[in-house]
């Protein structure tokens, strides 16, 4: 199974690399509303995934026969506050989490700094979780803000 996840990641990474989703200029063009490419990518990915997901949920099982498990993400104030913070970071770096790794792989040296920052940021969030829980209305620590 490890090999399977490695292959999934590599296919995902290759597509992100070649489509502009891991490219600083394409990301700024998306936010400047001058380049349609990223809206097309995300829009078509959702347009195809949504009906496929609907059908798969109706089928209710994985292809290996296990019951399908989809953990829904909880709603809380962190969706807005964290979303805004992430948007700021996406604009600054031109990368969201997947493309940070893709850019590192492509040989873009500055992406290593973005990766280091993201790891420190995620670490700080985990350590601060008990303090953020009440003001952000976050779920119990065991559940967290949602996988994804």
């Amino acid at each position, binding site marked *: 199974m490890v*090999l399977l996840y*490695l292959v999934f*990641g*590599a296919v*995902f*990474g290759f*597509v992100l*690399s070649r489509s502009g989703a891991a*490219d600083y200029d*394409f990301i*700024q063009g*998306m*936010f*400047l509303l001058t380049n349609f*490419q990223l809206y097309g*990518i995300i829009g*078509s990915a*959702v347009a195809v*995934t949504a009906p496929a*997901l609907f059908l*798969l949920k109706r089928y209710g099982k*994985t292809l290996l026969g296990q019951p399908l498990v989809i953990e829904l*993400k909880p709603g809380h104030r*962190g969706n*807005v506050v*964290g*979303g*805004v*913070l*992430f*948007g*700021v*970071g*996406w*604009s*600054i*770096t031109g*990368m*969201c*989490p*997947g493309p940070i790794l*893709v850019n590192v*792989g*492509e*040989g*873009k040296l500055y992406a290593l*700094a973005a990766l*280091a*920052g*993201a790891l420190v940021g*995620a670490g700080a969030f*985990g*350590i601060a*979780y008990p303090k953020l829980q009440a003001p952000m209305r976050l779920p119990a*620590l065991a559940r*967290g*803000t*949602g*996988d*994804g």
Partner: protein
Amino acid sequence: MLILHDLQAIHWAVAGLGISFVTITLLAVANRRLGVSTGFEDICSLVLDAPYFKRSAVTQGRPWRLPMLLGLLLGGVLSAVLGGGWAATWDLGMFDTEIGWGPAGKVAWMFAGGLFIGFGTRLAGGCTSGHGIFGLSNLELPSLVTTVSFMGAGVVVTNLLYRVIL
């Protein structure tokens, strides 16, 4: 044109289909919900002792997320190798032409941006993949709220930088 070897970008619909294929196959075969940013927590959990990093959602996610993260990196390597050869580079497109900072400035800029990404995605409970692709496709309201928030913030900051400040 991409920064990487000035390659022509593939059509957006091809990319959308590819991402959709990965998302659906990951769920249909392995019963996994696509999401990258939790992988940052998985990496943190290898070295940090805080209770947040000891919870089972993190430790049980490591065996599949860490290989997927490594795969993302390899996808980038493969793309560079097949697209004209792998080479270390500082090229940053319009940042170079409009702002023009050298390596030290880029490292500081990217590290600062990374802090926002790491903290923000985990506070929001996901990123472009977990909320934007999977969550929206699954019609989850928190994902819509998060996606609108990060797209809106990105539009504001990039426009501030390239149309107001510069």
